[in-house]
């Protein structure tokens, strides 16, 4: 079956294509086909897991050179090792439960078929991400799960909040993906291949400089920070709760957000060479974990409590993996790899269950606000019981799944006192906020009588998946019971098998911490012997800080989004006023210059031409008098000219000048006088004729 594992990924794609092109209008068949596909995938995944178990974890790889890009090959391939097999089972299990559950939850939605199409597309992308054998392919599927997450968060796009949330999720995770992409380019530039095995062997052989390796590690981790909602890119996940609750269960609790953890685990062979990169991973993990847990303490929206809980638990896994990388790079043994992957599995089951349970509650009471709930235990027994099983599991109560995986995580931190302390603190807070949620939802007096009266248990199609997941929440962790000869740690491991010796003391400590968390919640929210209002009053600033999620959204708004928008607006003004202003100025100058040239043309050049004509014409007028045709005028002229000649001769001789200037002036004056009289008389004639016309 292992060699046909690609079918596990292709079945949901088939379902997507079928629904989009053929089954869109037949809702029942569409959902049925989709569920059949994922159930087949589940059976196949379990088979693959069994084969991996029986073949003693021999990895299987198959690939096909799809396209020769210049400088590198794009391979399509699958890679199956125990980690892949476990992830396949987790994704198909939760995927099947969610699809069946959605039959009831989404029953009356007008876009029912589309919902199944999107879910199928998501499962295809997620399974592809797990099966990929190289970084290029994992990136492609990585982006595709981001897209389907976008589509599903915005599934109810009429809600403005949903439309905003899906955009926020996509863009925030894409900031992380940017890091992943840069990491990818670094791998391409230094390793000349994207294939996992080749990259890891090059890292091990020391060809890649350590600094580059650290950079690759940190950049790839940036992708994980985005997808797994780690600090500082965690802000999208709580908002993503705007999507249908089933989507939250599948994508934003069990599978997609775990993809970041998977990526770090998959790249562990890079991190073990770089203590710096590993330490960054571990610190981000624990910081996220503590921060998210404190926020979860005071939230009032049932889904948001679970969302912050998810962020916190993912931080746990990331921290465990980071510590593993660090310890290994220092030559120490560590249980971190096993702990991280084990918790990934158990968390998927109990957190998926919690979300589906929350969906069932919301389905019953039509509100997300836990202050409006209370006393629902009697109304919805199956939901309440399964929800509490999951809560016990996440709190880490013996002998449920969560106990074993959390115990492994605590064991990882043994040599790092600060981490140990914070891990236990988170464990305490987790137990507290989960049971605060349980007590406020299912016990006590109903606080909203109207909602309570209309509350009802969900149909069987919704409760059966709850029961199935509850079983897994109890037993799935048993594979890692330390006394088991061939347990989880000898199946999913990195490097060489390392059996951690069970530590009674540690188990007792973590159990005590969990129980005291539950106990405190019991006293505050069930017995009411400790007033939570009083505590909230006393630590008002801290309460506000937690309640407002450390003001991250406001912070990003004011230091990131607003400045960028201001810069963008400035650029736009700059573009319109300065650059285009310059262009228009050049245009304007050209026009003005053309105007000036036109004036020059009209008055100077054309003026010269017209002036020449005018002079000729006027001269003609003057000379006209000499050509009157009257003999006496001619005689007079001859006489006058003779006199003028005489006078000028006289002037030249007696005034001893070379040119008869005075005579010339006199003649000119006479001519002008004549001209002037002609002009004025012409004027009179003109105006006279004008008045006549009028």
């Amino acid at each position, binding site marked *: 079956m292992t060699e046909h594992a690609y079918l596990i990924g292709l079945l949901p794609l088939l379902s997507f294509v079928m629904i989009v092109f053929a089954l869109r209008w037949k809702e029942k068949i569409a959902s049925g086909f989709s569920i059949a596909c994922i159930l087949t995938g589940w059976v196949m995944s379990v088979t693959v897991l069994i084969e991996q178990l029986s073949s003693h974890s021999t990895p299987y790889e198959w690939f096909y050179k799809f*396209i*020769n*890009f*210049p*400088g*590198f*090959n794009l391979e399509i391939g699958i890679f199956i090792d125990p980690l892949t097999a476990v992830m396949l089972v987790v994704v198909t299990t939760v995927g099947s439960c969610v699809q069946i559950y959605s039959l009831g939850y989404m029953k009356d939605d007008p876009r029912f078929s589309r919902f199944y199409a999107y879910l199928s597309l998501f499962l295809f992308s997620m399974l592809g991400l797990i099966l990929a054998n190289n970084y290029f392919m994992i*990136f*492609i*599927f990585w*982006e*595709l799960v981001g*897209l389907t997450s976008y589509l599903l968060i*915005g599934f109810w*796009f*009429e809600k*403005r909040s949903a*439309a*905003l949330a*899906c*955009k926020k999720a*996509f*863009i925030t995770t*894409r*900031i992380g993906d*940017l890091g992943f*992409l*840069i990491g990818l*380019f*670094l791998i*391409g*530039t*230094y390793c*000349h*291949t994207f294939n996992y095995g080749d990259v890891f062997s090059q890292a091990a052989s020391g060809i890649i400089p350590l600094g580059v390796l650290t950079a690759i590690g940190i950049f790839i981790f940036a992708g994980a920070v985005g997808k797994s909602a780690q600090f500082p890119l965690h802000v999208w996940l709580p908002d993503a709760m705007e999507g249908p609750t089933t989507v939250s269960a599948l994508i934003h609790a069990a599978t997609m957000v775990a993809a970041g953890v998977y990526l770090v685990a998959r790249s562990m062979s890079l991190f073990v060479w770089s203590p710096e990169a590993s330490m960054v991973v571990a610190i981000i993990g624990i910081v996220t974990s503590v921060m998210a847990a404190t926020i979860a303490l005071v939230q009032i929206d049932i889904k948001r409590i679970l969302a912050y809980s998810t962020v916190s638990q993912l931080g746990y896994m990331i921290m465990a993996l980071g510590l593993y990388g660090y310890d290994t790079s220092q030559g120490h043994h560590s249980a971190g790899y096993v702990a991280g992957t084990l918790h990934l599995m158990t968390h998927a089951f109990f957190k998926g269950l919690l979300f589906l349970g929350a969906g069932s509650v919301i389905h019953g009471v039509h509100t997300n606000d836990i202050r409006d709930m209370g006393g629902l235990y009697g109304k919805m027994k199956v939901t309440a019981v399964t929800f509490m099983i999951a809560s016990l599991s996440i709190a880490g109560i013996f002998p449920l799944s969560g106990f074993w995986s959390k115990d492994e995580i605590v064991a990882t931190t043994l040599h790092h006192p600060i981490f140990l302390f914070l891990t236990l603190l988170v464990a305490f807070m987790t137990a507290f906020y989960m049971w605060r949620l349980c007590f406020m939802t299912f016990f006590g007096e109903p606080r909203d009588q109207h909602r309570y009266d209309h509350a009802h248990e969900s149909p069987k199609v919704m409760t059966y998946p709850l029961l199935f997941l509850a079983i897994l929440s109890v037993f799935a962790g048993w594979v890692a019971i330390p006394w088991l000869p061939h347990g989880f740690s000898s199946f999913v491991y990195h490097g060489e098998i390392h059996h951690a010796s069970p530590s009674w003391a540690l188990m007792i400590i973590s159990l005590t911490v969990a129980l005291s968390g539950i106990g405190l919640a019991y006293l505050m929210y069930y017995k009411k012997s400790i007033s939570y209002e009083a505590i909230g009053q006393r630590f008002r600033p801290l309460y506000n800080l937690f309640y407002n999620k450390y003001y991250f959204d406001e912070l990003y708004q004011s230091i990131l989004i607003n400045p*960028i*928008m201001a*810069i*963008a*607006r400035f*650029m*736009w003004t700059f*573009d319109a006023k300065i*650059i*285009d202003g310059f*262009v228009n100025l050049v*245009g304007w100058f050209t026009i003005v210059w053309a105007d000036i040239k036109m004036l020059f043309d009209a008055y100077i050049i054309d003026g010269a031409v017209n002036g020449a004509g005018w002079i000729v014409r006027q001269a003609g007028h003057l000379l006209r008098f000499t050509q009157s045709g009257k003999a006496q005028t001619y005689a007079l002229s001859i006489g006058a000219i003779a006199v003028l000649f005489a006078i000028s001769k006289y002037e030249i001789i007696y005034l001893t000048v070379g040119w008869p200037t005075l005579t010339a002036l006199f003649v000119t004056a006479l001519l002008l006088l004549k001209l002037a009289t002609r002009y004025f008389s012409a004027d009179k004639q003109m105006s006279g004729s004008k008045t006549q016309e009028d």
Partner: protein
Amino acid sequence: MESQILTLVTFFPLVGIVLIMLAPKDRPDTVKGVALLVSFVTMLLSFWLYSMFDKVANGMQFELNVPWITSFGINYHVGIDGISLLMIVLTAILTVLSILASWNSITERVKGYFISMLLLQIGMIGVFCALDLFMFYIFWEVMLIPMYFIIGIWGGARRVYAAIKFVLFTMFGSLLMLVAILYVVSAYHGFANEYSFDILKLATMPIAYKPQLLLFGAFALAFAIKVPLFPFHTWLPDAHVEAPTAGSVILAGVLLKMGTYGFLRICIPMFPQATITYLPYICVLALIAIIYGALVAMVQRDVKSLVAFSSVSHMGFVMLGIFALNLQGVEGAVLQMINHGVSTGALFLLVGMIYERRHTRLISELGGIVKVMPVFATLFMIVTLSSIGLPLTNGFVGEFLILIGTFKANMTYGVIATSGVILSACYMLWMYQRVIFGKITNPENEKLIDLDWREKGILIPLVVLIFWIGIYPKPFLDRIEPAVRSLLTQTNMVREDIGEPAFTVETDGSLSGMTAEDVNLNSKGEVHE
């Protein structure tokens, strides 16, 4: 036949022009029909060209070289390589779609409009075929006139301003180009004692360093205006906003590519040394264009000018890829030229469809469209994602190749350019959310009718291309690769072992290690073979 086919593809639209001229004025449907038919046949011819193209062969194919004005060495010289081939096919496809898109929106002066469209097509295909600078210049100018009319007559409210701005900007550049062409030709006369405008011949001539700088500058300015590279881009938003839908599609889809095509065909092969000198400046301008275009796009209120500014950003990517000067970068750039034509063309078509219904393109006037136009919303989503560069769409392949090429050339440039990818997601998705999602707030949007068959028919070919290039770009890359290889080896810039598929960082065109020796320059700054 083989040597005539390019001429046939180029000038076949003339048949349509003549027929439309003969058609009576009061029969607009006949005119449209003729235009559609002729452009469709031209598209089929271009497909035929594609199928006959030998993807293994190096050098120009379907070459035809006939003396024209012999005393100046001007020839009718046409021929194509893989780059021009794909651009011709893209042009042919987009012309058909543009004519279909104008079916209902053009009601006045129908004859003139479709004649302009076909004339434009002749000019565009001619530029991609031309191997003679004289012909290149003529076709370059031939494109300008019909586009001027299309914007100036059938455009929006400020159409005259936009049309004149467009023409003046382009003319300014092309005049400098003309001067440079004449200089190169006369220099060639001094070198080989004969006149020639042949692009391939001229590229073999060594030119001294200083004239190279001036000549590169003149050509580069003409091409940069066309791309448009920051800060020569301001004609673009005006032209796009005012142009009719088909005008925008052709403008963004093909005309902008003329600029980058010019860099590939003329600037880099002819002036290799100047290329190296100018390279950092052009790269920085390209980076500015990427970030700047994206930021300005973010605050636009008009969908069309948002898309116009996104073009500035995307074309910045193309320029960056070209000037990475390695196989990945240039191949990615050529592919991205096609991608931008497809995606941005589709975006303009989509915006046009909304505009025909609502007579507004303001984002604030829209919203909640998905409720009334689900098919439109779906197609819009696909095109948006392709523009963002999501994997499995065409945008991803091009951007990925460009970025990996840039990374090899210069890490810093690579990191900055990669951050542009985020910004494109921001403005596109924000726009999509405001236009498509949410509740319908404007009652006028409630009565919108979803796309009809004609409109679906326009968009579906583009969507097919989006996925085809996104999933299986091999046929396109195979045809681009020999051309790019010969471009890079011809300019001695790549010393890559041709037979080796793997990265060889040390030996290929990584810019950091590029010195004068790499381009075989001696101290006088002359290229010796």
